[in-house]
């Protein structure tokens, strides 16, 4: 799994390098070529997979793989298992990281260096190795529950969550906000919930999306812990009908992509509106 420090996936601000303000306004064929090649390289496999998933076994165009999806044995169970794992993971990781990070930003800034190194470690220890140790170390009652996976996914999600929260908090004046709220008589919980969380919205959104994408796509650990999550189902079912398997794989990929784009654009338009309000 290639899920590494992509902290800026949602806030993927594209750099504005105003090179062309200089007198020569060249047309950069090289750059355009690279971009078109990259676009083709990203799109052609997606197109091919979509085409393949809209074929019946004889290779003719057909909608049957799509219409057959809901009735496939085990798919609904796998989907709901993945969703449950995703939400449990998300709840744990946010509950653990948000208060810790707020506290660290306010009171223990030096601890950030330590956290930065520690949250790289889940990348150092690959999932395949981590699950080996977890299955050996976990007590039996935990090993028999699918939520063991959620507990481990929290570790895998930490790099993203740490980085998006860290940059979100870095952009705020946390101390002033908290002191203002506290001196107006707000308790800690309502300070976090009503002052800091709304200000951290976009950081929290990106952490959420990344965590969900991670859990919904994770195959290594789930398959070796013998739970049939959505990706595990896709691989297993490939033996039965590759067209349906590919259709489900593409639906989950495009679904995540759409969700991500949607959340980014909602967030963008909101912050734009806020900026406009402030300006007027």
């Amino acid at each position: 799994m290639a899920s590494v420090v992509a902290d800026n996936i949602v806030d993927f601000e594209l750099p504005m390098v105003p090179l062309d303000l200089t007198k020569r306004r060249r047309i950069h064929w090289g750059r355009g070529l690279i971009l078109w090649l990259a676009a083709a390289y990203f799109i052609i496999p997606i197109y091919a997979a979509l085409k393949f998933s809209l074929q019946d076994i004889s290779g003719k165009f057909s909608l049957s793989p799509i219409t057959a999806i809901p009735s496939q044995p085990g798919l609904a169970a796998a989907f709901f298992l993945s969703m449950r794992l995703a939400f449990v993971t998300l709840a744990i990781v946010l509950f653990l990281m948000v208060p810790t990070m707020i506290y660290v930003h306010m009171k223990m800034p030096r601890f950030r260096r330590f956290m930065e190194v520690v949250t790289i470690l889940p990348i150092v220890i690959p999932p395949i190795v981590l699950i080996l140790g977890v299955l050996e170390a976990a007590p039996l009652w935990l090993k028999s529950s699918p939520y063991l996976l959620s507990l481990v996914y929290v570790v895998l999600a930490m790099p993203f969550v740490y980085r998006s929260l860290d940059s979100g908090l870095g952009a705020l004046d946390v101390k002033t906000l908290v002191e203002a709220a506290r001196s107006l008589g707000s308790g800690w919980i309502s300070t976090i919930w009503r002052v800091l969380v709304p200000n951290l919205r976009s950081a929290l959104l990106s952490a959420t999306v990344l965590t969900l994408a991670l859990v919904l796509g994770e195959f290594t650990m789930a398959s070796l812990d013998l739970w049939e999550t959505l990706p595990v189902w896709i691989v297993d079912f490939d033996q039965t009908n590759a067209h349906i398997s590919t259709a489900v794989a593409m639906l989950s990929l495009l679904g995540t992509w759409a969700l991500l784009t949607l959340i980014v654009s909602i967030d963008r338009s909101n912050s734009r509106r806020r900026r406009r309000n402030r300006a007027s």
Partner: protein
Amino acid sequence: MKIPSPLSDGTSTPSGVDDKDRGGRHITGTLVRSLRTSVPVLPFLAYITLGLLVPTLVIINLAFRSDRGALTLSNISTIVHGGEYLTGFENSIKLALATSIIPAVLGTMLAYAIAQSRFEFLKRLVATASGVLANFGGVNLAFMFVATFGANAIVTSWLARLGLNPWSHGFDLYKLWGVAFVYFYFQVPLMVLIITPALNGLRPAWREAAENLGASRWRYWRHVGVPVLMPSVLGSTFLLFGSGLSAYATTEALTGGTIAITPIQIGAYLQGNVISGEEHIGYALGFGMIVLLLISILGYVLLRARSSKWLQ
């Protein structure tokens, strides 16, 4: 709540910024206070310990144990003395090198092209695609590539019509280099994501200064651009190396575990395919991967520290 003093000096305890104790008169008092300051981060530390440290230590411990529990080096020497496990490591390292160096170059070029482009739509498309593809990974990519470059798949048949069927020229999607080809699909986007902040640090002012001083494009890159970017690019390459080394899902879904690379061998071990007398070999394989990845992450951290000096 105490109002934190902005004057807190550099000699305070490792954790407390609002530590008012100057001159270290009450060392125990300071210690107690700094411990009390750290209480809220204990849940985080406990989670990391249980979820990451303990499993890792268990692996390292078992890598040096015989089946009866005595300390031994035999697991390690089984790997080092040739055979399929050493081949696994060789293949893994080859795969990781190829899928880190080439995508690092391509990803940097692509990120630069995205940064400079004026086509908003194209930029947005490539940028969000990078985000999704770098993270979603694994199984879905394997399926996409079977449908694209499989023996009878779409692009294969396009190329075959041109007389360039890659399968008849030595290409095999289900062999090591076919797998490497699929890895590019998430390694290149990953590189784009990691390197973009560094490209942002490349100030237009530097280029304008160089141009005003009469530097050609080549000289600008030779003396300014490349030296500034180099630590970031190399550091990110280490990260891609780690990612390529540890990827399991893509290969497993694509080949069903027929390729001898270390993650697949660990997976086979966990699924119970164990030769008797080698019951702990899986842990030794895990230990070997941890060592390789520690080296690569060390390279990343060192180079990152160097590049962050310039890119602030």
